[in-house]
């Protein structure tokens, strides 16, 4: 047992840090560090920079153009990435659909889809939830009927994050109504430019357009876009969710935010003293700091476990999202009443207008509202507790 990083790992950290210092464009760094509105072009530009370096996919094996990094290297990369103020890469392609294609797709599908994900050329979104199928995902009704060498898809998906930018959507569709609901589900890749698809925005409580509804009206999808076997989609869907959850612990991001929160607590004034001297605030900060340390080491413990993460990944999802939400909450509270003004135009890089309070306070309440999603998506934290009680505790 040794909780220190090896000299090789430290050298790797230095290499990543140096690369970020040399290659992260200033405007991207500024946008991320000031927590301004995310921008499609920025995300694509950053993915291209990483791709050119050969670091387009930190979690992929080398044979598909990934880095081949081990879990510790991936964690180090994420930590340094967040600390430097580089954007988080998009999960939907890289961490969600790609592992499914690698594991269950055929060679043709791998050659066709993986390169576009790696370079950032293809933007993916997720078609899982439906208005009537949230936590009870298996009750989904969007149907795909086989007609010759095509499927005809009808139905509606919802909560489709960044679907407005997407070129492709990976969908769970119903191909059979026989047997248990889980048994008639298939995993289908659909070109978002296909006639019959309509994307309608859902405005979130922070006033931002991040999620969408996606409607399918007799959408014709080539049968070669089916992953694996028909009616086996539930297996692939669960596999994907396992990958998603490990990433949702998001420790690198939270560590960078904790560092920022400590700085803010020193800058913000509480009467004649800095906020950090307010014992009640500082004690809560200390509690969160300890919990984040526990999360960080628990992630390392789980990811270095030779038996693999398994259903224990649910712990990481629960704790990671709870801690993330508390960080955003404290960041908002650090600004006090400076946080109350809603100035959406201040979320753009070129904004020079008036503000209420500090630059730091401007996005803080909006972010806090937005981040309530963390404990809801990716399988709500209550669903995670169901998973723990069933698969770990055997209840």
């Amino acid at each position, binding site marked *: 047992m040794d*909780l220190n990083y090896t000299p090789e790992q430290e050298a790797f950290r230095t290499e990543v840090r140096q690369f970020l210092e040399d290659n992260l464009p200033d405007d991207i760094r500024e946008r991320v560090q000031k927590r301004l509105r995310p921008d499609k072009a920025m995300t694509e530009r950053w993915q291209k920079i990483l791709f050119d370096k050969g670091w387009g996919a930190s979690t992929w094996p080398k044979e598909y153009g990934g880095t081949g990094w081990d879990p510790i290297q991936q964690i180090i990369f994420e930590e340094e990435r967040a600390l430097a103020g580089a954007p988080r890469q998009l999960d939907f392609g890289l961490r969600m659909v790609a592992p499914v294609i690698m594991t269950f797709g055929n060679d043709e599908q791998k050659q066709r889809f993986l390169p576009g994900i790696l370079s950032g050329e293809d933007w993916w979104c997720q078609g899982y939830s439906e208005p009537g199928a949230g936590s009870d995902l298996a009750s989904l009704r969007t149907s795909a009927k086989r007609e010759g060498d095509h499927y005809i898809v009808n139905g509606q998906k919802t909560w489709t994050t960044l679907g407005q930018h997407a070129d492709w959507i990976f969908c769970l569709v119903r191909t059979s109504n026989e047997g248990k609901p889980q048994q008639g589900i298939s995993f289908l890749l659909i070109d978002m430019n296909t006639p019959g698809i309509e994307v309608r925005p859902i405005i979130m409580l922070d006033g931002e357009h991040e999620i969408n509804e996606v409607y399918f009206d007799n959408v014709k999808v080539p049968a070669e876009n089916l992953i694996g076997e028909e009616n086996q989609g539930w297996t692939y869907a669960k596999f994907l969710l396992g990958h998603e959850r490990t990433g949702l612990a998001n420790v690198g991001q939270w560590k960078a935010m904790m560092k920022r929160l*400590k700085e803010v607590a020193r800058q913000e004034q509480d009467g004649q003293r800095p906020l950090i001297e307010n014992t009640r605030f500082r004690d809560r900060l*200390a509690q969160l700091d*300890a919990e984040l340390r526990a999360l960080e080491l*628990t992630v390392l413990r789980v990811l*270095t476990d030779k038996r693999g993460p398994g259903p224990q990944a649910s712990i990481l999802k629960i704790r990671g999202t709870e801690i993330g939400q508390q960080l955003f909450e404290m960041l908002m509270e650090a600004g006090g009443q400076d946080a109350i003004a809603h100035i959406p135009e201040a979320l753009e890089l070129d904004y020079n207008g008036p503000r209420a309070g500090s630059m730091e306070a401007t996005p803080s309440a909006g972010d806090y509202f937005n981040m309530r999603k963390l404990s809801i998506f990716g399988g709500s934290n*209550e669903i995670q507790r169901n998973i723990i009680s069933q698969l770990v*505790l*055997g*209840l």
Partner: protein
Amino acid sequence: MNFDLSEEQQMLNDSLRRFVTNEYGFEKRGEIISSGTGIDRATWSNFAEMGLLGFTFPEDYDGLGGNAIDTMVVMENFGRGLVVEPYLATVVLAGGLIRDAGNDAQKADILPGITSGERLLALAHYEPGARYNLSHVQTTARKDGDHFQISGQKTAVLHGGQANQLIVSARTSGGVNDESGLSLFLVDSSAKGVKVDDFATHDGHRTAEISFSNVTVGADNLIGIIDEAFPAIEKAVDLGIAALCAEAVGAMEAMNAATLEYIKTRKQFGVPIGKFQVLQHRMADMFIQTEQTKTMAILAASEADSNDRASRREAISMAKTLVGQGARYVGQQGVQLHGGMGVTDEMFAAHLFKRLTLINLLFGDADHHLAQVSDGLLAKTA
């Protein structure tokens, strides 16, 4: 970065697990607790034979040269079986202090005796009114020729009534709360002027209130540097905290296992109560708390031997904070899920709960250590 036990540690773990299951059962433990001394000499000899008592001592003094990770493995198993023997008092605290602060003669005199199981020692440090403040010492040691005269009152001396010798902290200079001016002395429990009041604790261990009235000790009984004992005391307590964190993990895992078993078999409304989602989620939260605690116990053990004070203290206090909170949650909820049975003396869960509760109260509770972490944040500002 790896979290695996070494092959030796894995073997130690396996044999301790067997020992606790087969030879330190609930009934046996009950007999030991209600015996006169509250400890079991045969078990202690057994520990000596297994090599447990000198695990962390240097090889030159009959030890095995182990570290706090080895102690973690031992204590986790002790927590699982609620072992009440004076391992923390004698081996971890007193043994650790002698190992880290004693001179060669003292090490040669004391450590082999601990290793063989012949000698029991205890650390007499905390005082009435000090609460968890380590520098608050009013007991005095007055130099008198080539002797010292010790007078004062010590509280919460774990297994003090069973010890042959006490390591006593006393003020040789400075004010009541000063970190400097503290010294450590080795005192025979039978020395003139030592009065020991031995008590059982709620969780089946033993504690003592000990007063010293003009107790005379020779200058060679001074352990470490005069006036400069504080860092050694602090480090010994940190070793003790790391050990308690590991013990809490074992007790929490045992509590989860016992509770899980109970809610799978206890039926109400025609079904096992573990079918109810409200209990399932409670159990899931107990499991999450335990995993987090386990991580922090590993962190504490990894840092406990470190001489980088700031880093060690931060890790230890973070660990004890979350362990205290986790122990409280798992203890309370374990009892709750056992229903009426949980508040009876016949249930192992009730005894686990009592130990978990007292672990939080020893060497600083969650609030105390959270304040330490919090003040550490302030210090970093300056």
